[in-house]
């Protein structure tokens, strides 16, 4: 049975876990990213479900550790962090607030409605600095698995693009 106390505890745990920042894009929290999937309060303690953005994302171990640390610091005890694969993470789960934060940080946010990739590139990505759509891809793979490297032909600045997924 879900008692009001338990529901409140779940909300608190969700807020604390959700505030954990992505180690590679520190302006985003795992709640913004949609990496935090569920928080449960069980007899045995708190369980937190997270889902990887990419199969090989090296930040996942770090994120799990940060969640444990955050919940313990908040006096909620050590949680069990579970990695779930299904449903598969998509950039559509990124919150509007998250997209705005990304853009302010200088990373072009992913477009909504991630569909199949065309075999040859046809994306239009707006420059996060000046807003121009006269941009070009430099490399499909950037400094982390989730980003590509682009260049703005108007303001001449290079920028990261958070790839649709």
């Amino acid at each position: 049975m879900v008692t009001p106390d338990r529901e409140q505890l779940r909300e608190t745990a969700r807020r604390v876990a959700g505030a954990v920042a992505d180690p590679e894009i520190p302006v985003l929290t795992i709640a913004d990213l949609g990496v935090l999937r569920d928080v449960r309060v069980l007899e045995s303690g708190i369980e937190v479900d997270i889902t990887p953005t990419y199969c090989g994302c090296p930040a996942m171990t770090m994120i799990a550790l940060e969640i444990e640390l955050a919940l313990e610091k908040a006096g909620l005890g050590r949680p069990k962090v579970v990695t779930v694969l299904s449903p598969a993470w998509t950039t559509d789960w990124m919150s509007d607030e998250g997209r705005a934060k990304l853009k302010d940080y200088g990373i072009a946010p992913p477009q909504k409605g991630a569909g199949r990739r065309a075999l040859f590139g046809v994306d239009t990505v707006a420059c996060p600095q000046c807003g121009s759509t006269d941009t070009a891809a430099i490399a499909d793979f950037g400094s982390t698995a989730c980003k590509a490297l682009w260049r703005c032909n108007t303001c001449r600045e290079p920028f990261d693009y958070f790839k649709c997924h």
Partner: protein
Amino acid sequence: MTSIRLADTPLLTYVLRRADDALVLGHRLSEWCGKAPLMEEEMALANMGLDLIGQARALYTYAGEVEAKGHDEDALAYLRDERAYRNLLLVEQPNGDFALTMVRQLLYAAFVDPYWRAMMASRDTTLAAIAAKAEKETAYHLRHSAEWVVRLGDGTAESRRRAERALAQLWPFTDELFHTDEIEREMIATGVAVDPATLRDTWRTTVAGVLARATLTMPEDGWMQSGGRGGRHSEHLGHLLAELQYMQRTIPGATW
């Protein structure tokens, strides 16, 4: 350290074959670290390798659960001998030059991309979940390698010569992508697996389209080499595993 022995049960073998494909190709791509022809490719090759090793980890973890003998992803990757590895011969072929690496990636990605998409409908919910993640990643691998094969084939005389040589060298390993045996057929019959034969037309269309843009000629199907799914490998896999497994074999259970 002593190698682990596994029973040849259909689901376990089926999952291990896919895990081995991903790990071996991921390891091959990691061999480019520090040696790629340009900075962007340094990152691209490492990124694709990371995706594949991530897929391998999920698959090995699942294989360990299927076997239920307490073997985790590390035991399955580090403590099996060459003959116990069931990967395709294509993915273990040495990197060669950049053209060979990109052609190898194209030939594999053009298969595995529609494969994972089809596997999203697998009756095995874990495999379906892994497929849903993997298909998004392999779509990028396919695009990246396709764009490079076009540049190389339709590039300079030298890049074209190398792309042609890579195609000729790797073509005999492509038929194995579509092979089935008793294990695979059982998995197909129970709705766990997709029949790779149904993906052959898609694969040919994709590869033919890229080669046409690259102004390269699609090789004729001649003598086709196979054996990897049964543990009969080319001379290259043993060397790869020696490097991959060296630390865990020398200092069992080493952590840092």
